């Protein structure tokens, strides 16, 4: 503490300047009835060395995925983030700034975010992107409330949206919390047994305010039918597509097949998983949504000398101006993490993004070949295309399989029973650019042993 407070020991001098004699004088306006008596029941202050030692001890007891062979993804993915990103992000001018309320001294961050908007816009194929929302789930939720604001007047199914039934419950819960205040009715969009969207169910959504789907979807399926959706639901119903951004190195940009809003977890571009945060939510949209969209946005402008300059714009949508009529309550967002994303995207370039996507998909394809060869396991969506993860149907409980794999040092994936109660035997296995072929062999070998232990003869 002593190294953080420059005026420790100078209190008397400063108080005297003000004609005060004790620190208590500064709190003369705080009534006795509400005063804390004595010290807070907390430990004594620690030095930097003690803190870092304890951090190493406590965090060292966590199992970092890098210590294991890991196939856990399910929405967050362990991509390699280049060293330059981590070095640059610690520059104090970036790290210790805040919302660029004074554009003249914030041009660096403003320009970087305008570039981020461009990078995201190009990535997803839509003209407008904001500076980030909190995460993929709040981006999805805000996209849904946004599409209702835009479309409900003309909609035949007022205040109604259709959300993919595969949406993970945790994400769904965020969506429900954000939607309940506006009394938005959420219907389920059905899927076929192969994991693709049931187009007849999509027909029901025509005339509603919006449809929310994910590509690849939560069970890893790349849905070749999504390009048909916009025509089915029509111009007055928003098509909202959530993406894993790295997949867009290979997979068509949703803007090219009619998506009106694209959202997603930005994390695989620029950020380690970090226990699920801070990461950043992507939000991009087409023109009709611009004035009712959430979040901050940077515009390119000029200064009084006509020189190129950047500033926040369209702020009249936001809470500090519009208060309870704002399009969202968001104020502090995830800009610094979005900046890491921008740096990663810059280094990749278009071909690098493609290569990265290929590496993810190649690992997944190899995984599919190796794991589907195991007798007794079955790929329920084998006929579909996958980008980086797929479902394995096991001859026993996925939770038990995961425990077994954990015992041999493998983080085997995600137990889909936690999302889909009817599927106790579904394991979601994920692959990234970090997955090696010998790791896939190792998983296959151990799965074979576990499957055999289930007494299965296929």
């Amino acid at each position, binding site marked *: 503490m002593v190294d953080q407070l420059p005026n420790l020991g100078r209190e008397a001098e*400063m108080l005297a300047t003000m004609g005060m004699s004790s620190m208590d004088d500064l*709190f003369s306006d705080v009534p006795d009835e509400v005063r804390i008596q004595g010290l807070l029941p907390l430990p004594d202050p620690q030095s930097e060395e003690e803190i870092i030692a304890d951090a190493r001890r406590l*965090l060292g007891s966590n199992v970092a995925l890098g210590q294991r062979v890991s196939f856990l993804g399910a929405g967050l993915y362990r991509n390699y983030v280049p060293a*330059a990103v981590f070095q640059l992000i610690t520059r104090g*001018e*970036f790290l210790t700034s805040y919302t660029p309320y004074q554009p003249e001294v914030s041009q660096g961050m403003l320009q970087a975010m305008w570039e981020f908007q461009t990078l995201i816009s190009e990535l997803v194929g839509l003209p407008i992107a904001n500076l980030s929302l909190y995460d993929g789930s709040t981006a999805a939720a805000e996209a849904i409330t946004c599409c209702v604001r835009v479309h409900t007047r003309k909609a035949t199914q007022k205040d109604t949206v259709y959300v993919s039934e595969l949406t993970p419950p945790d994400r769904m819960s965020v969506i429900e919390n954000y939607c309940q205040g506006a009394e938005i009715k959420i219907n389920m969009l059905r899927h076929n047994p192969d994991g693709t969207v049931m187009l007849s169910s999509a027909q029901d959504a025509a005339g509603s305010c919006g449809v929310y789907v994910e590509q690849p979807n939560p069970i890893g399926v790349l849905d070749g039918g999504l390009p048909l959706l916009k025509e089915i639901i029509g111009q007055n119903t928003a098509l909202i597509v959530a993406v894993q951004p790295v997949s867009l190195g290979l997979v068509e940009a949703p803007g090219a097949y009619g998506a009106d809003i694209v959202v997603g977890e930005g994390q695989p571009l620029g950020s380690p998983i*970090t226990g699920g945060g801070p990461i950043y939510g992507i939000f991009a949209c087409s023109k009709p949504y611009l004035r009712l969209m959430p979040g901050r946005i940077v515009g390119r402008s000029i200064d009084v000398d006509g020189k190129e300059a950047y500033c926040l714009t369209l702020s009249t949508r936001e809470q500090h101006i519009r208060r309870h009529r704002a399009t969202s309550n968001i104020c502090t967002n995830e800009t610094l*993490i979005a900046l890491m994303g921008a740096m990663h995207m810059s280094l990749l370039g278009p071909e690098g993004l493609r290569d990265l996507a*290929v590496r993810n998909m190649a690992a997944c394809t190899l995984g599919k070949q190796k794991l589907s060869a195991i007798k007794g396991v079955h790929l329920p969506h084998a006929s579909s295309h996958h980008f980086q993860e797929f479902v394995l149907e096991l001859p026993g409980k996925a939770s038990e399989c995961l425990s077994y794999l954990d015992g041999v040092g493998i983080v085997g994936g995600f137990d889909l029973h936690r999302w889909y109660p009817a599927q106790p035997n579904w394991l979601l296995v994920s692959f990234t650019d970090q997955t090696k072929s010998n790791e*896939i062999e190792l998983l296959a070998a151990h799965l074979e042993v576990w499957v055999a232990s289930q007494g299965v003869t296929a």
Partner: protein
Amino acid sequence: MSHLFDHHGASGKGYSQPAPVLPASELSLPDTLVRKQAPRWPRISEPEMVRHYTWLSKRNFGIDTGFYPLGSCTMKHNPRVNEVIAQLPGIADIHPHQPEHHLQGLLSIYHEMQYMLEVCAGMDQVTLQPVAGAQGEFTAVRCIQEYFRLRGEDQRTKVIVPDSAHGTNPASAAMCGFEIVEIPSRVDGRIDLDALRAVADETTAVMMITNPNTLGLFEADILEATSIVHDVGGQMYYDGANFNAILGITSPGLMGFDAVHFNLHKTFSQPHGGGGPGSGPIGVKAHLADFLPGPIVKKRPIVGDEAKHAVDDMWFGWYQPTHSIGKVQQWHGNAGAIIRCWAYYRRYGNGLKTMSEHAVLNANYLRHVLHREAEAAGVGDMIVDGAETKVAKHEFTISLEPAKERHGISAMDIAKGLLDMGYMAPTVYFPLVVPECMMIEPTETESKETLDTFAIDFAKVLQVDAETLHAAPITTPVRRVDEVYAARNLCLRHPYDDE
């Protein structure tokens, strides 16, 4: 100028990557899904990229660059060890879906943070899930909404906010579906109890208020306000953005509040470069605890062979509150921010009170010397206090109304003049109740010399003539930016040549 999209060089391969485990030719995609046009991203080598972002950083002002007295934002120094800790693999490389026995260290830190915040706030249960102050507000108001629904008090449809409240307060309550009732503040900026009495009734669900308020004044009538709201059956919500003034001195619990959020990125120094990330945990009294978003962390003694994974011989587990509103962020909040704030708190421990005392000392000292230096320079009459008070808390407001009336110099002009002196400008035009408002928050990490020099420089800016100030700033990377032009000629991304 350095423009990212001017770079078309490098090899066109991006940074070099290992070969895929299978050749690209073996991958198959449905024809409808093959990407047809690659994103028109730049092609830039690492040296060029590093130089570009370094150049950008030099055009940006942070706490590390200089004094950053941005009121309501608590721009204090960010201790560097926290950044080192947040990059350890035990936090950077962990997944929220890993089993509990993989995450005992993380969970124990969560538990310690929940406890520490409960103690500081005088609340019974904290959740760390909300990822910003505004999301904390939303979460707490949602919990209260479900609490009333369960009690069958559906008629409580209104949320009261003072007109001095931060914009997120009404925005968050409106997102929950509440009707907003705004009440005026008194001329001294404090809450108007009569106005509160006039609107509080059986339709009141929540009153949202911050204390010290957004003018930096302690609401001495707070107990009276809480009892007015409680008497009609409503709940009191504490906007904790101004916690930096009160740690260890008073608490929302003692003031009678039912729920509170923290802005950890302010009070506990999570760096939020450019506007985020944040962390906005909330604390509630026992009657609201069952409604919190889950999971939260509980601890119990270890059993069986748990010792091999345990830290400190306790077991830390996720727990779902019975009537939980569900989730507000898909994962476990901003874990990386929680870790940094934990490292920050450990530095102070039970000395957090000293931290708040110094925040208040610095604010009052600056308030004093600012007026003194302005007087000495003969420009004391250009500024007046935003609200009359003997002491301020961690921040204070001044009004430039006299300067505006007499010389046509606005708060914005002074702000721009301060940029020329090498400072970040204070918050301007907030709170809305103070005309030509400047809200100044020095924080505890600024030295007396910095405050003295700032006061002298501020007085210098007050002496500058209107014409010169209207033209300020002149020393910054760009001069006054035309925000109207930006809004009229929307250019929200790089215009490619064919567009």
